[in-house]
């Protein structure tokens, strides 16, 4: 990463054909790696693929970006470490997977924090000082530079029974990720949160080891969870937020014009990815509703029904403030809450 932009990583793979790494100085070509947490056809991968195409086009083929799907370079946490080390230049990271390092990133796991309206939420993600100054600064201290925040869609519940009121969560075994904050959120509704490995989730839902799970629609459809769940609730209880990030040493070492090119492309991608996830989630929601082989009852929470959950979710913010983060994080949340209030 110290000699940013030389024909490194992928170039090494080509060494069989070219004699020498000493490229001609004038027409420098760049080979970068961009790793994502998702696979083809899912939001993060499609973002990265389109980003790579745009950059390649704008640079007249001078910049080539290889996009990696989830699985190729290890776990999500492995990928973060590889970004920090500069082995990959770009990565899309879900703040949830960095919770052990930047605890403040778990703010996106707070339920019913952002507005119901997705467009307003994305607007806040684009402009929020709390995120772009405070949170991004905390990531930069760990050698991760967030370039943009975007939603991959609202999170929804699926269950073996209908989930409409907090009473429906009584004794409900909810599969969650291993995070104490998320566990606390479902305990607040009266559920029994169960951390369970993703690879066993389909079978466990089918057999009733757990009763339900949360994910954005596109992921639910892709992993076929709707096949083994009878009910789905459009709860929009929070958003699956991801960040496109870059290794800061690499980024700062780039020539100004190249850096400007990246910034410009990141900017252009924001409306694109919003549209992309909206289309994907809409289309796949239809496909879940129209799947007659595996019927799934889909309901949408009304405003009053959401209010009941919002009330129970509010004290979880105290847990976030008191147990998860320190002063900096409290300030960040306070500012973010103000920004959100200003949009409502």
């Amino acid at each position, binding site marked *: 990463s110290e000699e940013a932009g030389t024909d490194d990583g992928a170039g090494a793979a080509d060494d069989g054909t070219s004699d020498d790494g000493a490229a001609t100085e004038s027409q420098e070509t760049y080979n970068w790696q961009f790793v994502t947490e998702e696979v083809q056809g899912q939001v993060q991968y499609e973002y990265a693929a389109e980003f790579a195409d745009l950059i390649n086009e704008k640079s007249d083929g001078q910049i080539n970006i290889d996009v990696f799907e989830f699985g190729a370079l290890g776990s999500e946490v492995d990928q973060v470490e590889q970004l920090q080390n500069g082995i990959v230049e770009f990565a899309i990271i879900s703040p949830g997977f960095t919770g052990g390092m930047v605890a403040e990133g778990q703010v996106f796991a707070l339920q019913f924090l952002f507005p119901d309206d997705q467009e307003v939420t994305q607007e806040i993600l684009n402009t929020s000082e709390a995120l772009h100054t405070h949170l991004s600064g905390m990531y930069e201290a760990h050698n991760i530079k967030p370039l943009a925040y975007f939603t991959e869609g609202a999170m929804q519940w699926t269950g073996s029974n209908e989930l409409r009121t907090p009473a429906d969560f009584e004794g409900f075994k909810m599969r969650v990720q291993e995070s104490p904050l998320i566990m606390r959120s479902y305990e607040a509704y009266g559920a029994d949160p169960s951390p369970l490995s993703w690879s066993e989730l389909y079978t466990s839902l089918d057999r009733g080891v757990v009763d339900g799970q949360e994910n954005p629609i596109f992921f639910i459809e892709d992993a076929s969870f709707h096949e*083994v769940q009878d009910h789905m609730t459009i709860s929009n209880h929070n958003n699956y937020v991801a960040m496109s990030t870059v290794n800061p040493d690499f980024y700062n070492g780039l020539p100004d014009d190249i850096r400007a090119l990246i910034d410009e492309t990141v900017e252009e991608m924001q409306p694109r990815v919003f549209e992309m996830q909206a289309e994907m989630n809409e289309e796949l929601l239809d496909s879940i509703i129209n799947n007659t082989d595996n019927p799934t009852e889909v309901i949408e929470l009304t405003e009053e029904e959401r209010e009941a959950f919002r009330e129970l979710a509010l004290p979880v913010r105290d847990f976030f403030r008191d147990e998860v983060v320190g002063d900096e994080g409290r300030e960040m949340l306070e500012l973010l809450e103000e920004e959100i209030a200003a949009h409502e």
Partner: protein
Amino acid sequence: MIATMLTIMIVLLLLGFPMMIPMMAAAIVVVIFFMPNIDPMFLVQQMMEGISSYVLLAVPLFIFAADIMSTGKTSKRLLDFVGAFIGHLRGGYAITTAAACTLFGSISGSTQATVVAIGTPMRKRLLSVGYKDSSAIALIINASDIALLIPPSIGMIIYALAAPRVSVGDLFIAGIGPGLLIFAMFAIYSFIHAKIFNIPLAPKYSWKERWKVTVKALFPLGFPAIIVGGIYFGIFSPTEAAGISVLYALILELLIFRTIKIPDVPKIALSTGLVTSAVFILVAAGQAFSWLISYARIPQMLTETVLGSDPTALQVLLIVAIFFFIGCMFVDPIVVILILTPIFYPAAMAAGVDPIHLGIVITFQAALGSATPPFGVDIFTASAVFNKSYLDVIKGTPPYIVMLLIASVLIILFEEISLFLL
């Protein structure tokens, strides 16, 4: 770079180095001399990653349970029970082994766990009735393959995620045909093999004797009942079932049969730990190796070269079969499926391959690769668990490889074998 890597691996492998060394030596040399921008500490990150999958926990737990039961009485009584009903039939034990592997595999979803849990007791019995060790082990590792084809298959769940818009439920149904096909081939082979080698038949039990053996086996029979029932009724997941089998084995042997005492438990666990380490260090090395290959985008380079432009459906499927077969010789099938599926999927769809059919071919080849020499996690597992040399483990495999290759050709050529139930 690829040439250097392959040379190091093959030479060190043939010289008889411990198997993690060919992989790790190749990886270290490649990182140091060909990939200066990669910090070699990431090889260690990936080794740790390789063994961190929750599903892998089933392996040491089933080894532990099997060790406890074979120290005590459980596994003998279970086998006496089986023997009382099928011992007098030609190839009965071998067919039962194949059936048990298929059934158990469908529960555990892991070929390695099946090798351990069914292989450990059944191998002893096969030996005692006159089978050669090499045929017994070959049967066990190959019959365990079927596990990946019968639902709930972890391989299929992973494929469904990597392949857009594929239903896990459809894949599960589609795996049944090929699974039964292979089981039928193995059963017929077992019958013929027993005839040719004149495996002696046990005397037929009277119903009175059968009743006696059944009564003795009542507690041990609770073992499969609890595992199957527990998963079926959603009390625990397949990996958790491995833990429950340890608990049940301990209850039987410690409290009911009183064949072992508390201080024996750590001793048994030590032998489990030894076997686990020997296998898992290879899983770890395989992950580091596959990470390097993925980072260098070697699979993409190779597929572009071999697929060319506009391949036919058959060409794509054959190439898919070869790539997955080779990939799974080195690395855990789950990782291979996750890495390779997206590379082939678009080409396969363009050539008009049915996505479910593709999934079955991929899952099957992944299973096949893990039971085939030179690298194959099932072989490593068998070698470690049975404490047999590598060569002893693979000696008996050729007939099975031939059968599985035939099955593989049939499954590729006739998509109906997979799709007829849908």
